[in-house]
């Protein structure tokens, strides 16, 4: 079992124009930097990107907005990005906004073979327009369907050639669910380790969900809101 590919470019083999991608990360935390850079190099167009956020102008998915490779974003929050705003207001870019918990659960459902589920989020709002609603125990819920992707691009801290992944701190976020929901799941890691080095009890994403894995070099890991306090 060896899922290691030599580079981010090799990991995207088969990724074509018009495909639907899931891209892990929350803000700029835990995003697949190297796979995004490879997407820019690959030059594929007309992409639908499912990602909680859309990066900033010059980092994260913002890079793919600059090059106009994205046709549609499916996200929960897309601020902090002037080019995004311009393309959205001009109608160049389609945007589907989804409650964050619903987005996370729809990705998990896609990976877990659950085609639809009921959630209370968005009931009575425009999010529920056109969707089935139903009462359970006196409370109203909205039926939401699964999300799946042609490629899921995720970022982990450590991984092995079986595709087993361990994430670090809040860089975990959407990565585990998206890893489950890709027809082809590409994982980039800061460190490739030998099988057996990761304790089986501590693996966050079992390798079965990962198709290709590679080690990235020189992660920038940009901080979006650097907030600190002074020592007393």
């Amino acid at each position, binding site marked *: 079992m060896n899922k290691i590919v030599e580079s981010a470019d090799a990991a995207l083999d088969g990724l074509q124009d018009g495909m639907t991608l899931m891209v892990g990360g*929350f*803000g*700029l*935390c*835990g995003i697949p930097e190297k796979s995004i850079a490879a997407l820019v190099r690959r030059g594929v167009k007309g992409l639908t990107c499912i990602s*909680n956020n859309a990066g900033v102008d010059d980092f994260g998915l913002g890079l793919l907005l600059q090059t106009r490779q994205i046709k549609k974003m499916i*996200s*929960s*929050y*897309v*601020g902090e990005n002037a080019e995004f*705003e311009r393309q*959205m*207001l001009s109608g160049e870019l389609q*945007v589907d*906004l989804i*409650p*964050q*918990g*619903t*987005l*996370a*659960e729809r*990705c*998990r459902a896609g990976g877990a073979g659950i085609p639809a589920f009921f*959630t*209370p*989020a*968005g*009931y*009575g*709002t*425009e*999010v529920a327009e056109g969707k089935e609603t139903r009462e359970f125990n006196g409370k109203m819920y909205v039926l939401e369907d699964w999300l799946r992707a042609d490629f899921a691009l995720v970022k982990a*801290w450590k991984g092995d050639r079986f595709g087993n992944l361990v994430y*670090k*701190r*809040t*860089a*975990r*976020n*959407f*990565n*585990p*669910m998206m890893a489950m929901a890709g027809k082809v799941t590409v994982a980039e890691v800061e460190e490739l380790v030998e099988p057996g080095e990761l304790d089986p009890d501590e693996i*966050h994403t079992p390798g079965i969900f990962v198709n290709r894995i590679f080690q990235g070099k020189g992660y920038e*890991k*940009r*901080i*979006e*809101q*650097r*907030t*600190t*306090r*002074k*020592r007393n």
Partner: protein
Amino acid sequence: MALTKEQMAQRIARELKDGYYVNLGIGIPTLVANYVPEGMNIVFQSENGILGMGPFPYDGEEDADLINAGKQTVTLLPGSSIFDSSTSFAMIRGQHVQLTVLGAMEVTDTGDIANWKIPGKMVKGMGGAMDLVASAENIIVCMMHANKAGESKLLKKCSLPLTGVKCVKKVVTDLGVFDITPEGFKLLERAPGLSVEEIKAKTEGRLVVGSDVAEMIL
């Protein structure tokens, strides 16, 4: 006198109970963490995947892999845990988080809330707000009583697109504390020095005033 943002946070902190798990929204709600009573154990949840969130890191100790839902660098306290986004919202939807405090642009006297979208302006998205308001058993909205034009934000009906319906339980504004009741906003406490009449004048929604509304003690 109207409350300052710090005083609003301070007042909300009095709603905390020992052992509560609490999710604080961006803005004034974040300040509530500064007023947790001495000796009280409160665990703060951040919906990007933290329980037991601590204060901002010391200069030079920021970790790009450790941020809160506002994308700010934070720290972890002993006993904290990290989880993925689906588990985080499982906690929220499953009503394991005991108190949610968040800001709003409009609230109605039936507990509807609007806080994510202004037609004609750039829409950034609802983030986790719709999940939070639809799920929490205990939601406190914390906001200015009127907008910059002086118009009441406590309404009969929201003019903006809704975030959730019939979900808000309590509102703390710079003018007072209100429970949402079947009869409307029930005034519980007045900001120090403010009269019931002044509050009434600035409240568009149905207002219920008991015979003896206490002044807030800060």
